[in-house]
């Protein structure tokens, strides 16, 4: 009796397994992974898209960071990669090696905000040079007080907070301020969790820190925004939707991207998803407190996808201060 039961159980399991193997490829799943900065945008689109398709297409979104996302993407494990910076040379090489062609699509802007405590009365604006004095590797252990940066600032300890070394935010900030990605002093409070930074700056009069603009929008009452002097025009500019979009808030604003595998774009559900993404980006990007591209730019990006234009606009280098005008010009040159 017992033996018969066990045997029939085994038979059922084997049949069910065979069923799995035979019927394996039925489901339509779109796999997305990558930057935590782009995640809220992609999540919003995925949520709406799945509702619109009534569950016929499944979308998964992971957070492996821009670099981790490209690793999976270039091995062909994901269909779309979220990226908070353009693809780098060595990542392009890996993609090439595995025969993955990609379509680079800018989807929004993100501004990095420099923040101090609301009780800080002495900082009215900062230049890139001052930020560099604070953050360059040589400052470690030496620039420890506010008056080390600028003589008229008080003789008070300088407490620093910043994004952790694995984030695209850290890469971009160091690239823009110090001039070399990942090159920074080591003696600051680093966290991948921006809420930790918000708490740190909100609780310390002598604090200074940087993170994505969206986190400031949610914590306006606890933080004070520092306007940055635009190195080209010499004017001090607050980060806001307007100044990020028109390119006057420089060098701390950047475009964020999705990379679509050309092969995956051949599937109808992925084509539909990307088209849906670009069509609804402007509205959804604002909901999650990022800055949308101008309407004209989305049109060009849609065209770029329609023509399946592969490759990157950035030549595999980290570039700082890309203005929307330049991006558009590059787009036009490309066609």
């Amino acid at each position, binding site marked *: 009796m017992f033996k018969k039961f066990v045997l029939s159980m085994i038979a059922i399991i084997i049949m069910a397994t065979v069923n799995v193997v035979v019927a394996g490829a039925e489901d339509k799943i779109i796999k997305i992974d990558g930057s*935590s900065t782009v995640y809220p945008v992609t999540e919003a689109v995925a949520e709406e898209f799945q509702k619109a398709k009534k569950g016929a297409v499944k979308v998964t979104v992971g957070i492996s960071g821009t670099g981790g996302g490209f690793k999976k993407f270039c091995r062909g494990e994901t269909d779309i990669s979220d990226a908070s910076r353009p693809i780098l040379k060595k990542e392009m090489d890996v993609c090439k090696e595995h025969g993955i062609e990609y379509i680079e699509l800018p989807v929004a802007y993100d501004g990095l905000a420099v923040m101090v405590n609301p009780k800080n009365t002495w900082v009215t604006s900062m230049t890139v040079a001052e930020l560099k004095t604070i953050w360059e590797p040589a400052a470690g252990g030496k620039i420890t007080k506010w008056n080390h940066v600028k003589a008229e600032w008080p003789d008070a300890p300088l407490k620093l907070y910043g994004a952790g070394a694995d984030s695209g935010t850290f890469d971009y900030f160091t690239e823009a301020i110090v001039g070399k990605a990942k090159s920074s002093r080591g003696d600051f409070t680093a966290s991948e969790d921006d*809420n930790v930074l918000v708490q740190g700056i909100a609780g310390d009069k002598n604090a200074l820190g940087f993170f994505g603009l969206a986190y400031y929008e949610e914590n306006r009452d606890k933080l004070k925004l520092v306007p940055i002097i635009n190195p080209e025009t010499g004017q001090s500019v607050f980060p806001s939707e307007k100044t990020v979009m028109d390119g006057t808030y420089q060098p701390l604003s950047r475009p964020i991207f999705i990379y679509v595998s050309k092969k995956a774009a051949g599937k109808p559900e992925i084509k539909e998803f990307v088209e849906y993404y670009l069509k609804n980006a402007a509205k959804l990007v604002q909901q999650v407190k990022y800055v949308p591209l101008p309407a004209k730019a989305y049109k060009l990006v849609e065209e770029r996808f329609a023509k399946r234009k592969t490759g990157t606009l950035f030549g595999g280098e980290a570039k700082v201060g890309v203005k929307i005008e330049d991006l558009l010009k590059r787009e036009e040159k490309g066609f």
Partner: protein
Amino acid sequence: MEDIKKRIRTIKFWNSVFWITGLLSTFVGLALLFTLLTDLFMDGSLRLSYKFFTSFPSRFPAEAGILSAWVGSFLVLLVTAYAAIPLGVATGIYLEEYAGKNWLTDIIEINIANLAGVPSIVYGLLALGLFVYFFKFGESILTGGLALALLILPMVIMATREAIRAIPNSIREASYALGATKWQTVQSHIIPYSTGGILTGIIIGLSRAIGETAPIITVGALTFIAFLPSSPFSSEFPFISFKWLFDPFTVMPIQMFNWVSRPQQEFQLNAAAAGIVLMIMTLLMNGFAIYIRYRFRKKIKW
């Protein structure tokens, strides 16, 4: 006489000093746990509702729920239990009842003791290399469950061995005296008598596995997933399906971490609510373990 009284006083003094120290130490732990729980409940209890359990994650904090997370956690634990229990219990029985005292057994024992101390992320890396890339199971429920099974395997083995060791030798001898073979002895005496201890060990292992994040992230659990794995029942013959084993998934701790790192304050409340659910799940499992131990102890009459 005075001398003796003085000595007794000193001894009594030190006795009470230790009593107070011990009591205070206990209170530190309890007070911390209590603060943590109150904090979680104050933040999260408002969000706990039927809808919270039946909604998928969303960008709107008020609409977001933990449906995909708790289903994912449950299915992963199911795989973990199915893999770790037979392997762990069999290993434990072998080591206690069958293995001879030789260098091979020594090596196995040292390794199991060492495995219990390996950081969980290392199991994640192992699972990534073995299950995801070598066996090509993909970033699936199966991979996650097996990774956690590796993690709790040493705990299950240890618990089995402890439980078997507690059985008096006279039971074995009586069984052999009646002509039973080793397997018959194990089957009808050793396993039934040690079931309570083994189950307790398994449940404590599983309640550790449910809170593990590192190995699950390494094997590629996802953050946003707004659909459930395929159903285990199908309308066609043979009516059950194992397709869900290969579906992508997320688990409770990952969902919590994702909410904690969001800028909106409301997401923090969601994270706290998910924390309460996770805590209650763990407490229930531990409570169940205590109950089982109690019942089996009562049943055994030697």
